């Protein structure tokens, strides 16, 4: 039987009927009823789609290269060396941020470029991340107590708190302008990664604690590449489950994922351990339409949605903090009301994250009221939990639009920073003047930013369209729900574009 047409097989789960669906949903655009087993339907659909894709791992040379056991360590080793160098230079090098490798490499280049990598190849950064690498090496080579991470914390909340604290501290105290603090911060994260690798199993730190883990998770949903089981049925019939347990030649999935259930990129770094371990060659890597996870996955959790929507607030607060009118206002608050600048910035930062979520929750309430029917009542929380994912492309685009400016200003200045490392007082602590490059005129950058936001907007609108139909198959109600989502997109976009329009701090 061709995998693409695999239906219910001998090893598959028994048929059950979802009565809520079996009652019938009169909608011209969607098959009226699917009385088959939910798992079987998905299996065949997934397998069908998979069959129409090219498994990159089967390409000659390329496939072998990607599956090569030493590929990951060969990239990780220089990354760790660079990372240690960055820590040393950050702490002991020049404290002029534009001349220090730590601040320039981490906050200008890495922070700007990593955002673009999500769209292309998902969590590829986590594949080569030196922090995860060091933890993993310690875990695998030195030893670990192998404790399990507490069940109550098996979500993104610890990572959210870490991320929001980090970005908040950066906003208030400007870590990105402080090389030594940057160095100490990176050192702290590395120590945390190692300590957690000693205590807990596999990449517990990366999955649950890493400050950018949550951001990587939600943004990797927009990726155009995925690693998936080719046939879920085959996974279900597999009794040995080497992908979970590991083999002599491969490790168990460091991220606690089970390819047989995996329907999104959030926690897959494409390390291909599952490919190496699967005795059935049932895991493949393929290109796919961008952002398919956004509307296809069945996993919808509040911690991810709140971050997805909250990132719009994070971007808004970080961007407005660089504008002159806001700077004047913060000063006026300090002078008139006696509110210190750090407190104002903190309040604005936290408020912007909360406001973005409240605003979208309000929109969700509108959408749920408009899209509910007698036989399909959509409560606000469900609408928020599902359609909030539609905000991810827009928030990613806002992030990109912000970072384009930094990349334009500094251009290839990193090469100057590296070249200057041989200056006094000697390599690697040497430094010298580094000039902003301004590769493109301001007006060009403005339109590039608008184009990125435009694409993010359209992408989000399309995701909203797909999600509206999943939540409410009735056409008219689905349209009303989509209208609410687009209303939110327009509002968020206009607010952010307004912030981008403000004059920057002198």
């Amino acid at each position, binding site marked *: 039987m061709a995998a693409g047409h695999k239906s219910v097989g001998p090893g598959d789960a028994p048929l059950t009927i979802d009565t809520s*669906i079996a009652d019938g*949903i009169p909608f011209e*655009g*969607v*098959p009226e009823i699917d009385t088959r087993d*939910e798992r079987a339907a998905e299996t065949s*659909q997934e397998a069908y789609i998979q069959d129409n894709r090219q498994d990159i791992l089967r390409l000659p040379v390329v496939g072998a290269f990607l599956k090569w056991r030493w590929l990951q360590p060969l990239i990780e080793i220089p990354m760790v060396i660079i990372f240690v160098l960055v820590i040393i230079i950050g702490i002991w090098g020049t404290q*002029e*941020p*534009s*001349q220090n490798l730590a601040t320039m490499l981490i906050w200008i280049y890495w922070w700007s470029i990593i955002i673009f990598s999500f769209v292309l190849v998902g969590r590829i950064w986590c594949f080569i991340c030196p922090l995860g690498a060091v933890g993993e090496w310690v875990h695998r080579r030195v030893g670990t107590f192998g404790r399990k991470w507490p069940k109550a914390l*098996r*979500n*993104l909340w610890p990572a959210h708190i870490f991320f929001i604290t980090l970005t908040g501290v950066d906003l208030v105290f*400007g870590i990105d*302008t*402080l090389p*030594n603090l940057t160095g100490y911060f990176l050192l702290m994260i590395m120590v945390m990664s190692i300590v957690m690798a000693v205590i807990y199993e596999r990449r517990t730190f990366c999955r649950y604690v890493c400050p950018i883990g949550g951001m990587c998770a939600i943004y990797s949903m927009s990726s155009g590449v995925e690693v998936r089981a080719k046939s879920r049925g085959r996974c279900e019939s597999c009794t040995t489950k080497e992908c979970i347990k590991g083999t002599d030649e491969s490790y168990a999935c460091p991220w606690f994922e089970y390819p047989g259930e995996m329907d999104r990129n959030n926690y897959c770094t494409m390390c291909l351990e599952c490919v190496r371990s699967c005795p059935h060659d049932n895991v493949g890597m393929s290109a796919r339409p961008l952002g398919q996870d956004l*509307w*296809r996955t*069945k996993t*919808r*959790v509040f911690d991810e949605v709140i971050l997805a929507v909250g990132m719009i607030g994070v971007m808004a607060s970080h961007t407005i*903090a*660089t504008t002159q009118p806001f700077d004047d206002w913060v*000063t*006026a608050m300090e*002078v008139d009301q*006696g509110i*210190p*600048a750090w407190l104002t910035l903190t309040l604005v930062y936290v408020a912007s994250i909360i406001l973005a979520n409240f605003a979208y929750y309000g929109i969700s309430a509108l959408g749920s009221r408009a899209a509910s029917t007698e036989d399909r*009542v*959509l409560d606000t929380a*469900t609408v928020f939990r*599902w359609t909030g994912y539609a905000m991810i492309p827009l928030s990613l685009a806002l992030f990109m639009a912000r970072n384009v400016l930094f990349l334009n200003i500094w251009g290839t200045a990193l090469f100057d920073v590296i070249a200057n490392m041989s200056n006094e007082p000697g390599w690697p602590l040497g430094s010298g*003047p*580094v000039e*902003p490059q301004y590769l493109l005129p*301001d007006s060009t950058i*403005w339109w590039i930013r608008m184009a990125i936001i435009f694409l993010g*907007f359209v992408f989000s*609108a*399309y995701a909203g*369209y797909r999600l509206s*139909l*999943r*939540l*409410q198959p009735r*056409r008219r109600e*689905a*349209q009303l729900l*989509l209208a609410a989502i*687009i209303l939110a997109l*327009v509002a968020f976009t206009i607010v952010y*574009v307004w912030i981008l*329009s*403000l*004059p920057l*701090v*002198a």
Partner: protein
Amino acid sequence: MSGHMRFQWVFPVVVLGMLAMAALPASACIPGAPKVEFEAQALSCGTAFLEPYNLSLTTEDELFPQTIAFKDKLYVIWQKEDFVETDAVKYHVTMKSFDGSGWTDPLYISSPDMTTPIRSELNLNPRLGASEDTLFIVWTSNEPNWTSGMDDDVVFRFTEDGDSWSEPIEVTGHYNNGLDKLPRVVPFKDKVWFVWETNDPLDSDGADMDIVMRSWDGRELGHVVEVTPPGDAYNDHYVDVAADDENMYFIWMKKNYTSGANIHDIWARVFNGSGFATPPMKISSDATDDNAHPSVAEADGRGYFLWESYDTGKTGDETSVVLRGWTVEEGMGRPTIVSSLTSNGKDTRPTGLWWKDQLYVAWTSTDQGKTFGSDADLLFRVGKLDGDGYVRFDDFIEVSDSMDDFSDRFPSLVVYDDVVNVVWAIDSNYTHLLLPENLVNITIFRSPDVVIQSIDIPFEKSLGLVYTLGTAFPIATIPTTGRVSVTDLLNEPLEGLRVGLQVRKTDESPETSRLWLLEGRGDGIYSLDELVFDKDGTYDIRIMVNNVEAGSFLVDTIPPPPSFMDRFPVTTIFFVVLGVVSGFLLFRMMGRDDVVDELRPVPLGRPSPEETL
């Protein structure tokens, strides 16, 4: 009428006539002078120090004097060296006052017992400020008696009667662990404000030096407010501040790492009591050379910013003293070079004072065209606003003894008893008999002392003219390609000389440069009705006098980027329309049978366990 009676009339008329003639502007005798009158200072109307009066007269260094008038007394403070050969050098803050008849003994402000100089730590850079009823002295100190740790902190003392002084109060607070230094104090709107530079992360952002301020209402200190913009990572130094009834004016220098290791820009900002009236304004050129030692003087609603600059476009000069004025209505005025156009030395550390509608500017100069020898001497000029809002200066006057061959530095101006006085430090080794065993180093030998002298403006020296760079100093943005008026570009008395502008687009070869001759109006102003830039770009403009370059500046005719209002309405409409159009298209898609979602509708209800992580 008797002869005696005639004499009674004739004599006053003749005297008044002579005075009137003497008070006329030099336009009466110097062709091309502007129609601005300068008032001579009548020394006889008040207490005057006609000769330099030495206030310190010691063999130790006495530097950075500051002076102020408060409740009928004149106060002078300075930083006094406490030298012991076997130990590191320490410094006191020392003060003397003058009540109209004599000077008091020195008071040691930084000592617990102010009459005795206790050898302690470093007490540096004292400054004075006075409200109507209180006199403040603020200085940098690492004195452990009243500051925390051994880092530099800012402390102050105050007095209401000039006799009893408060204990030193630390402005920077005991939690502070960064460097805090070079403080200033100024009363403004019912409070006294302390301004200083710090790298304390609790008071400012980043590890760089920033400018901060803090108020004192007579009982307690307010919050620390950052004057320099948050997020800025470049060092900000050497702040000066002045205040009138409406505004407080800040000026400071900021490191410009992109232009070179030792390049600074000059920045200014205005505070109106409830908020900053301006953002930080870079008032020096886009520096390719250094700018330093800024100071500011208030002038009843107008702030005058002064600094020294290597970057004026002049050739054959070291540093020049540059002036710019600011008002709420007119914003920042054009830069004016106060020091001599033909200076061949350094003109440095300017200080200004506004009194009776005239601006007094004093500075240290090694310009051998105006002073004698290679030592530093004190020069000053008096300026007055003309009808166009620009300051026209009279001739250069040297305060110090040009022939003394000893450096005169750090001038501070004050009006006392209706007379303008200048206090400065003079390397007065000639005033002491030094024993050979004391000549351990040049510092002792130089032994600067603090002296005071009144400024006299002889009538016959009135009126020279000032070299003013035009609207385009040195880089100005002209919104569009077109015509630029260069009237008032030059105000130097250059009658008979051939004056022109040599204009060249910077990305074109020197052969393409064109000379535009300027026309003298006969009143000291050279003008050109219009200068046409026919292409967008950056133009290098050199001022040529008899084919010798007298200065240069750049004019950028590239249109500025669109402003907020240019962009926001268009993009707002665009995204609203985008929302409507995308919504419409997606609505239409929902009605088409061939475009359906391949997945089932979502089962409703609470998320099942497998739907959670």
